């Protein structure tokens, strides 16, 4: 079990939190890994009691472990995930304090802002919750062109792990500022000769952000215009994406992460969040 890749799902005992259980089980099965179910509590319970408390009727993973951890829930979950070198945390956006007005609940805020590994967030209100038989085939990866290579490479590694192909989507809109970082690449501002500039731009974009993707991961590149959140959701629907991956800076304060918040609030798909270095 030690050598098997680990998936972590935190559960707080609410039905809301179990919205992510199907996806967590499915991913654990796909990667032939171990599902680590984590419950933060100061009162130790027996396994049967734990299963009952966590509203887990039946688990259909081949390999799982139940954990009870103490202390602050967010810190404890993050520490746990780091210690076992988890490939991913899968969680519901909300728990027992579920308020649909809030984009994400308190624990989820802490996890997605500070996790060192990708976090898959499932909104409990989506129409089709992934269940244990979920087999995602296609992942949407919007990229704005900032040089966040490490995060993107992690997403590609994950894509290989969960056996999905990737659709990279570059969105342009009025109001977008040119990223200031050296190595950024956005839509070509000068298209002297589209018959050459477009293919060259596409090739360079893939070279910069997809150069180290595993060969098993098939990649398509798309370019759209419009408000990013709207475009991502529309595109995902039109192209039968199974999940959306977002590389982001990790700050959900007011005035920041408008697109991430918008997606989390409106999505009908699991969202995979990966923090990039700022």
């Amino acid at each position, binding site marked *: 079990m030690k050598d098997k890749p680990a998936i972590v799902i935190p559960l707080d005992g609410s039905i809301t939190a179990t919205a992510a259980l199907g996806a967590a089980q499915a991913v654990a099965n796909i990667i032939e890994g171990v599902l680590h179910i984590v419950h933060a509590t100061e009162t130790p319970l027996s396994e049967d009691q734990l299963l009952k408390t966590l509203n887990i009727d039946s688990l259909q993973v081949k390999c799982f472990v139940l954990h009870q951890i103490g202390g602050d829930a967010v810190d404890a979950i993050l520490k746990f995930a780091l210690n076992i070198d988890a490939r991913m945390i899968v969680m519901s956006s909300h728990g027992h304090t579920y308020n649909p007005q809030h984009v994400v609940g308190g624990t989820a805020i802490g996890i997605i802002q500070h996790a060192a590994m990708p976090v898959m967030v499932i909104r409990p209100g989506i129409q089709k919750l992934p269940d244990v038989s979920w087999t995602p085939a296609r992942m949407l990866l919007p990229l704005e062109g900032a040089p966040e290579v490490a995060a993107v490479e992690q997403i590609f590694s994950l894509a290989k792990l969960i056996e999905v192909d990737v659709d990279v989507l570059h969105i342009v809109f009025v109001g977008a500022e040119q990223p200031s970082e050296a*190595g950024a690449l956005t839509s070509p*501002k*000068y298209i*002297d000769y589209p*018959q050459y500039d*477009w293919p*060259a731009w*596409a090739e360079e974009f893939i070279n910069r952000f997809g150069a180290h993707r595993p060969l098993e991961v098939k990649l398509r590149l798309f370019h759209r215009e419009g408000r990013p959140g709207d475009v991502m959701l529309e595109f995902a629907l039109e192209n039968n994406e199974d999940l959306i991956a977002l590389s982001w800076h990790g700050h959900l304060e007011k005035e920041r992460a408008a697109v991430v918040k918008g997606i989390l609030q409106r999505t009908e798909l699991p969202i995979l969040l990966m923090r990039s270095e700022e």
Partner: protein
Amino acid sequence: MKKIYSPTDNPAFLLIEEGYNPLREREIESLFTVGNGYLGTRSSLEEQGSASNPATLVAGVYGKTGADATEELAVVPDWLLTRIYVEGEELTLTRESLLEHRRILDLKRAVLIREWRHRNEKGRITTVKYLRFASLADRHLMVLKLVVIPENYRAQIRVETGIKPCQKCSHALAIIESGALEDTGIFVTARTRFSDIVIAEAQVSRFAGASTTPDYRINTEQSFPLEEWLWQADIGQSVTIDKFVSIYTSRDTDRPGPAARQHVKGLADQKLNDILSKHVDAWAHRWRTSSITIQGDPDAQKWINFATYHLIIAANPLDERSSISARALTGTVYKGHIFWDTEMFILPFFIYTHPECARAMLMYRYHTLPAARKKAAEMGYKGALYAWESAMNGDEMTPPVVLAPTGEIIPILSGQLEQHINAAVAYGAWSYWNATQDVDFLITAGVEMLAETARFWASRVEEGDGAYHIYDVEGPDEYHEGVDDNIYTNMMAAWNLKRAVEAIDYVEEFYPDVWSKLQNNIELAITETERWVKIADNIYKDVIHSGSLIEQFDGYFDLRDIDVADYEPRTAALDVILGREKTAASQVVKQADVVMLLYLMEDGFTEKMLRDNFEYYDRRTAHGSSLCPSIYGLVAARLGLMETSMRYFRQAGTIDLANNMGNASGGVHAAALGGLWQQVIMGFAGIRVKKDGIYLYPRMPDSWNHLTFSLRWRNQLLHFDVEREKYITVTVEGDREVGAGIYNRPLGLLAPGRIYRAGWDGVTWQGFNEQKA
């Protein structure tokens, strides 16, 4: 390395990249290209990393990847390849091993220096230095110098250096043969596919510095040949390997292989110092006539030095069968194709600093006249219509469509509709003739080019309403296709027709035998030229609205009006934001169209018309082309709109050099660089070239205190020294008087060896007066 190998002292001539960023590697490769007009070599890492896109491109060497594929400049085998092994472990650039890394392009001496300190897992630190150049004194010669110093260890070091075919490139050529030369050295011979141009590269390397004799061998076990040097290195011991590579093609000689071998053999006894010195001297000579100095704005100085460098390395005065493509010899994105960029944006630099190169570029157009005649005939017209995209022989290379990542299939109509290229070629030919009075060019090539392009226009126009119209055409503004009476096309066509008549009259008067022969060859009747005058005088240009505004094409003002500023900020081209249909239905303009006329035909407009039209179109121009900002900046400077002009100068100056846009990944934008030069000379210095001489009216940005530059004019060299709103000093180097003056003042005759000065009276420039020495 000795001082001769150190970069020049002046930082304005140094392009420096510290560290290593694989994301930007392909851009850096383009920006730091070394070349000499015969070839260009991207500044790829010698050992070729995973982000490398190495390419050496030889002008005119086109091949195809398939029978139906388009011609493209073939990437010849990489002559740089060099790998270093310490105790069998290759030194590669990784984050963990990198202590120091920098590349320095010395624009003044045209050498690329690379400095690298590597530390391996065992703590062994190796200093590696490279110096490379493509000799301007000997265009078939490339040199790579390597210095290896083990800083803190003793170990066996092996260097392998060879010539490697490009793995990542499209395969427009195939290797024929490779192996060892007779004594030492290696060779590779390749042939382009479908065009059968043979490329021969030969290499010898020399070793110096070890205390023991190195082992040397030639390794032909891999798919490409290598010279290998192996030695036991001592701590701090500096070893040098000098590599000389010669390249010849069947465009140069029937026997390129022997030529390359002979050439490289002859270098074996020459000192690298001497070879480098000759190269540096050749560059000093070029900089003498091409250099622009700007005091007060270090950024501007660097941008213009960068532009000048890349223009110089793009051209070969000895090759009449190729010209400068849109990305020159720095990248393969545009496949080495030649557009109107060449004549309108790049050629002026050469006409006025190195006319020999300009002549060669124009002779390329002369040699591709047969293809231009063919294109005109196929389209049902007379005379010659130059290809919109040209390669080896002048055949049309424009593809019919492109698939954009937007998912759209975009039809490319330029190949059919953008016919103003004819006027561009005519403009180039006439400007060269005017600036040089090169009679041989005019009678050999120029008059025929002008006549045949004029003939095309005469057959292209349609008469109606008492005027001659050009329907269903595309001007420089490619957002609007299939328009009627594009004013730029109409007026340039008229200009083309008139210049053709003038050229014919001149040749007929002074070289009647030549004219008679040509007239018979192209079967030109007198009635034709009479009709050309009538067309030129009556071409539809009744396009003035509201007293001063020029309508870009028929119906333009009926389109939805748009202010481009409403769509800022944005990171994409405006036609991508709006969509092609909406763009075409609006007044958004891609690039200088009417504004280009305000530059080229300035004297045909009143001051009010110039100003009103610049302001009108400026608000509606999206600058979707890299060709655009410099022209707007030029016109703005002439109008005294200095803030606007500097904004465009900065935009143009950083198209390739900005580190957050990736524009240069596929090659530098040669036309933008030529445009930048024009903005300085024709804009800020206010140079206007007329039949009788050169006029100027400098209007410099506030931060520029001093501007100096030189121009070649009718075999004389004029030196200009402008102190902002103080003095303009001009001297003539040569043996004849030159007509020069302040714009809108009478022309004077300036004699060589004397000093002339014009003063600023607080409001305007006064005329030139001779100064006592």
